[in-house]
């Protein structure tokens, strides 16, 4: 089916998420939508899928103008979508999820689950997916959940399939398999829109590339274009992903982690017998595909999550920290930039100044006895806003009103202004604009140069390679290996799929 978007515009308040976007996807074509985080790709697709109503423009399928009031209309017209965050009900079975909204019923009006199972089996067999229709979705690994999403779209006869950042949660191997599936689907006539910000994947699978920046189409490219060409198109200027950094002077061991295991929220072993050391003056990057235990590891290092009893120790500067309170961890000298700043790093309703004292409410310089020392707080806030270039009108602005990059600067400023031995930075540049990324990277390197130990947890290989002195790769809760920063991408990619170097 041929899809055509003409002049799509979508605004949220004063923010223009999509501006006059034109796009034509031929039948059986794999089209990549390439763009930075926040460039407006997902918004555009949500408009296409009927989740959002466009403020202007029209959608055409095989030349006919469509008016989608909701996803139901879009699906009926043949559009299927695999969302970045899966749209599956965890407590339902695969079959129930697949038929939801399109349920077969039996003679007395009850659910006909046998037909539902048959539908799953049919698609599953056709593409060799191997999915048990009666398994509960919450018990399935993410790779399989994604297949359930694809089955869901295909049972509704999707002729245009949108995949929104489908590889974020996949290992390189699983990514390869997904690309194979995409090619087969395209061969059978399905049009595919593949949204991503990863250049390599685009080059591997796309027939044609459309680049989006700040809500606008900035150009079309051929998959044969060079990576740097695509990158500069994507961010709008020559990008230098390299960070200037001198050779490091490594000091003594600051943090040592020995045989530590951690359970996740579902009481399963997310970190499995992990050991490593970080020294003063070095950046240890922990690389890996999202969801391989990095989150749980970082939470355990801060004391947010208990380690399993009987395992080894977490030692910081000679002090054993096993399962002490978070406050004890912070006092022992840990700075922590969480991966999800809105959830763990900031109180959006609090002012910037109040956010600066988030983990400083127990002592100087923010307090006087049990009272807040407002004068001192204002002074510190003014200084940090200046030093870290937080763009705001005043320190009393609620943090929630700031842009992502400025919010992250508030978090980074707070953590770096404390006297810490170890900085843990988890996805420090996720959802942050390019200018802020460079600034934050420089600050992290400056920390290392001032003799602190730094753990950088990142799923972006580019970031890891730019900053790390050593790289530990995690897969399924284990550290596959700790390697030199000069290790090739290919080797790292294999390690991320669980193959030891």
């Amino acid at each position, binding site marked *: 089916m041929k899809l055509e978007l003409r002049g799509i515009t979508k605004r949220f308040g004063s923010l223009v998420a999509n501006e006059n976007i034109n796009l034509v996807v031929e039948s059986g074509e794999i089209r990549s939508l390439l763009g930075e985080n926040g460039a407006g790709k997902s918004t555009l697709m949500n408009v296409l899928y009927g989740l959002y109503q466009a403020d202007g423009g029209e959608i055409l399928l095989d030349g006919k103008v469509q008016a989608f009031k909701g996803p139901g209309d879009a699906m009926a017209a043949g559009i299927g979508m695999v969302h970045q965050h899966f749209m599956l009900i965890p407590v339902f079975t695969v079959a*129930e999820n697949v038929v939801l909204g399109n349920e077969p019923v039996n003679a007395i*009006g009850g659910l006909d689950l046998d037909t539902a199972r048959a539908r799953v089996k049919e698609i599953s067999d056709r593409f060799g997916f191997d999915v048990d229709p009666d398994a509960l979705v919450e018990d399935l*690994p993410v790779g*399989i959940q994604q297949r359930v999403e694809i089955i869901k779209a295909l049972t509704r006869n999707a002729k245009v399939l949108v995949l929104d950042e489908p590889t974020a949660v996949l290992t390189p191997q699983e990514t390869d398999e997904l690309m194979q599936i995409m090619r087969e689907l395209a061969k059978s006539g399905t049009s595919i829109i593949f949204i991503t910000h990863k250049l390599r994947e685009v080059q591997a699978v796309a027939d044609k590339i459309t680049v989006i920046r700040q809500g606008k189409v900035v150009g079309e490219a051929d998959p044969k274009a060079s990576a740097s060409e695509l990158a500069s198109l994507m961010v709008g200027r020559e990008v230098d992903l390299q960070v200037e950094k001198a050779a490091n002077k490594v000091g003594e061991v600051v943090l040592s982690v020995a045989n530590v295991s951690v359970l996740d929220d579902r009481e399963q072993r997310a970190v499995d017998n992990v050991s490593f050391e970080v020294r003063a003056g070095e950046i240890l990057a922990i690389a890996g595909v999202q969801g391989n235990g990095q989150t749980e590891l970082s939470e355990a290092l801060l004391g947010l999550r208990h380690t399993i009893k009987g395992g080894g120790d977490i030692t910081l500067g000679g002090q054993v920290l096993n399962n002490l309170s978070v406050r004890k961890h912070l006092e022992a000298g840990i700075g922590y930039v969480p991966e999800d700043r809105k959830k763990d790093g900031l109180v959006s309703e609090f002012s910037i100044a109040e956010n600066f004292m988030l983990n400083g409410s127990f002592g100087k310089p923010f307090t006087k006895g049990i009272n807040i020392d407002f004068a001192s707080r204002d002074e510190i806030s003014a200084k940090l806003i200046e030093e870290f270039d937080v763009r705001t009108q005043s320190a009393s602005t609620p943090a929630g009103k700031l842009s992502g990059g400025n919010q992250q600067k508030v978090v980074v400023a707070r953590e770096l202004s404390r006297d810490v031995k170890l900085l843990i930075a988890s996805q420090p540049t996720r959802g942050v604009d390019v200018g802020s990324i460079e600034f934050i990277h420089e600050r992290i390197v400056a920390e290392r140069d001032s003799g602190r130990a730094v753990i950088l947890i990142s799923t972006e290989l580019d970031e890891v390679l730019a900053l790390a002195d050593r790289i530990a790769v995690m897969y399924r809760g284990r550290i596959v290996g700790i390697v030199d920063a000069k290790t090739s991408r290919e080797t790292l990619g294999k390690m991320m799929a669980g193959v030891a170097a």
Partner: protein
Amino acid sequence: MSKLEVTPGMFSNAEVRPSWKTSIVLGAFSLLVLFAFGFFGKPGDVTYNLSNKGDIFSVPDIVVASTFANIVFGSLMLAITAISVWRTIQGKRTPSWLTLIAGLIGATALLGWLAAGNTVPVSFILGSAIVLAVPIILGGLGGLMSERVGVVNIAIEGQLLTGAFMAAVVGTVTHNLWFGLIAAMVASAILSMALASLAIKYLVDQIIIGVLINVLVIGITNFLYSQWLASAGEEANFPGTFDIISIPYLSGLPIIGPALFEARITVYLTFILVPLVWFVLFRTKLGLRARAVGEHPTAADTVGINVGRTRFWWVTIGGAIAGLGGAALTIGNVGAFGREMSGGLGFIALAVVILGRWQPFYVSAAALLFGFAIILRVWANGVAPGIPTDFITMVPYLVTLIAVAGFAGKVRAPAASGQPYIKG
């Protein structure tokens, strides 16, 4: 193509162990029965009266020494505790039906202790418990339907009160109890629509709005009662009750006959509604969609389910059922409206929803527990005057507390319960 073999729970190399809470609570109650009611119980024989005159066949009364019976009951409960302990050691959970049986035995033991030297009219107690439980069951069903789609309904109390009021007034004014019944359901449904639209469309906090609706309904009915009904009882608040319908043959069965098959229409409607709600919720596409909306509204939206509309109608119909529960208070039992006559049953229904794990049958069982406790207090005052009945009244609340704190911790509420759904 896929190299990953998928089996449910394939990553379950987990360290989870079922908690000891169930066993500990069971053990404590077993010992209580064994010693307080058994070895150190009250002397005297207790007569369990099982059949009435006119039953199809009669079962002889059981006469037994109170202490002896309770030693037996206590031992049985200890045996169940032992099973629970054994399963916990093996890393398995104690099935809830086993806990339920232990609870039933405990209740029978309590009866035997109270009635030492007296007769226990088993079917009278059971029948009264059901009648008293009906408003709680129906209120619970309403709350459950609302929570299953993700709307927390604190306003059950207000819905019951509305139903009770409308049934009495409309029933009196029209001289037709059926009109009263319908008016109760409609009025309560309209009230629920207000709750639903404030919560769904205007995104007002669901708990706060529920509390305020309760306060408002209490205010209005109190006002109308004192300004109008109190002086015009004859014309406005004298509906009478539905007739008792005996089902031929079945009502002649011993024990359960009089309890289950000699009742008012409100009780029979409850018997129908409980399985009906269960069937719709778990066996039809409407139910699948409703549960999807309550678990993951965004996902439901992406497959074309209208989240707002689904929530609106489930809350509304749930409200109508709760309104029926209110009608059961007046035209299904007492025969007139009284000030704040729901007396907190709506809040109990709220607890019962959690206690019953959002499942219609379990919710009904939990509601019966409360009905049982209410009748027990009344009856115990008669047979055993020295007993501090305040503690008997307290039991179901304590059980709910223990359950909410101890057992229900493991049970998952609908994931999106209480969260408004905001689309970009």
